[in-house]
């Protein structure tokens, strides 16, 4: 399996080669945001204000880290479930957001919107917050500090390991995976929440 290297912020051309299921190592600057920060950014946008972080070409990592021990920059920092942020995606994609990092699947409308805006969704292995933390080089709170673990942080990462969940062509790693290995079928639709 090929491993791609991706610099963050992201250049459009860098996404063309990525296909669902490919391994990627991300190096550069990410912004962290999860439920509460997304809600607040949506409120900002609704009030006609711009969100407190740049979005054009940027990567958002869905994470709420554990507190750092004295002498450390961060605690454990693995991904949270991406689809809880789905209802906020369209507004962020319109402002140029190019990639998100989380775990679990995205809803069909978001997969469609990412295709339209040529953005990708990258999957980090959920529950490996200790390992992933080792790829974080610096962390600084840049907005909504009162939200604590849910504040927006600017995070510099090095060779942060992810798998392409959804590419810009509409490919989906989870659908492809289950199709390949399922021996029985059930009548069930994924719950996008």
């Amino acid at each position, binding site marked *: 399996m090929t491993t791609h290297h991706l610099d963050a912020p992201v250049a459009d051309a860098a996404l063309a080669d990525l296909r669902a299921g490919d391994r990627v190592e991300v190096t550069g600057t990410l912004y962290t945001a999860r439920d*509460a920060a997304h809600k607040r950014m949506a409120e900002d946008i609704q009030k006609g204000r711009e969100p407190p972080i740049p979005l054009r070409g940027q990567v958002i990592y869905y994470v709420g880290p554990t507190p750092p021990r004295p002498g450390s920059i961060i*605690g454990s920092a693995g991904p*949270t479930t991406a689809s809880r942020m789905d209802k906020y995606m369209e507004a962020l994609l319109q402002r140029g957001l190019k990639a998100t990092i989380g775990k679990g*699947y995205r809803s069909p409308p978001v997969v469609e919107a990412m295709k339209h805006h040529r953005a990708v969704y990258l999957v980090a292995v959920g*529950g490996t917050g*200790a390992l992933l933390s080792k790829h974080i080089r610096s962390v600084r709170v840049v907005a909504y500090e009162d939200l604590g673990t849910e504040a927006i942080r600017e995070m510099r990462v090095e060779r942060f390991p992810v798998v392409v969940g959804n590419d810009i062509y509409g490919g989906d790693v989870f659908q492809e*995976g*289950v199709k390949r*290995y399922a021996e029985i079928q*059930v009548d069930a639709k994924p719950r996008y929440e």
Partner: protein
Amino acid sequence: MRSVPARAVEEKVRDLCIDINYHMPRDMLQAFERARETEVSPPGREVLTQLLANARTAASEGLPYCQDTGTAVVYIRQGEEVRVEGRLEEAVHRGVSAGTREGFLRGSIVRDPLRRQNTGDNTPPVLHVEREPGDKFHIAVMAKGSGAENMSQLRMLTPADGPDGIRRFVLQVVREAGPNACPPVTIGLGIGSTFDTVAWLAKKALFRPLGRRNPDPYYADLEVALLRDINRLGIGPMGFGGKNTALDLRIETAPCHIAALPVAVNLECHAHRVREAEL
């Protein structure tokens, strides 16, 4: 009558909260290794390798296994010949608070479900106290992650649905959850009682050691059959496809009304952190 000081409860809860977040239980690590040996999907095997590496890093570098250090679910079984000196509920609450602060765990609890102000120290915990004969005092702490909790479901089936209806429902819940529950999952299945209690039966099943079959052979067989079918769904580790979607399924049952068949499926991620101690 034996006495247990509230202070001892507090300290034990604190220690368990910290311990489970840094040291993945041995039975889980063995289950990851077994899964890695049997997994046919290359990305699935890669995920299992990372889970094992993550557990090693957590223990050696003092980083919690997962950043979601969970809702603290505390399950106490108190012998009828044991008296707690002091206030039990307060002791458990203080133990969780101390464990969160001293263990550098994440405060993941909001005081109010809609107004959502983080309490900062992961309190209050969820506390279950059951009385039993004898003079033992057991405390178990589970750090319950919310990714899998969010994917759990409860349904009031009818008696006519029977085991086939339960099978359909369980497979549907696991399939709908897919990658979101952080597979390989473990599953607590509650059957019977009423709407309020069936969910607790499902959670209680998760407190049983991994692979500990129901003592009733009828339900033990059902556990094995359901687990086999779940692992034919193809979801695999982290949903990347594969044969290891669930590591275990445990059933707890209770009597129920002639009109009812309540069923609760409590999903638990691979970060299944539970430990029990005796005071």
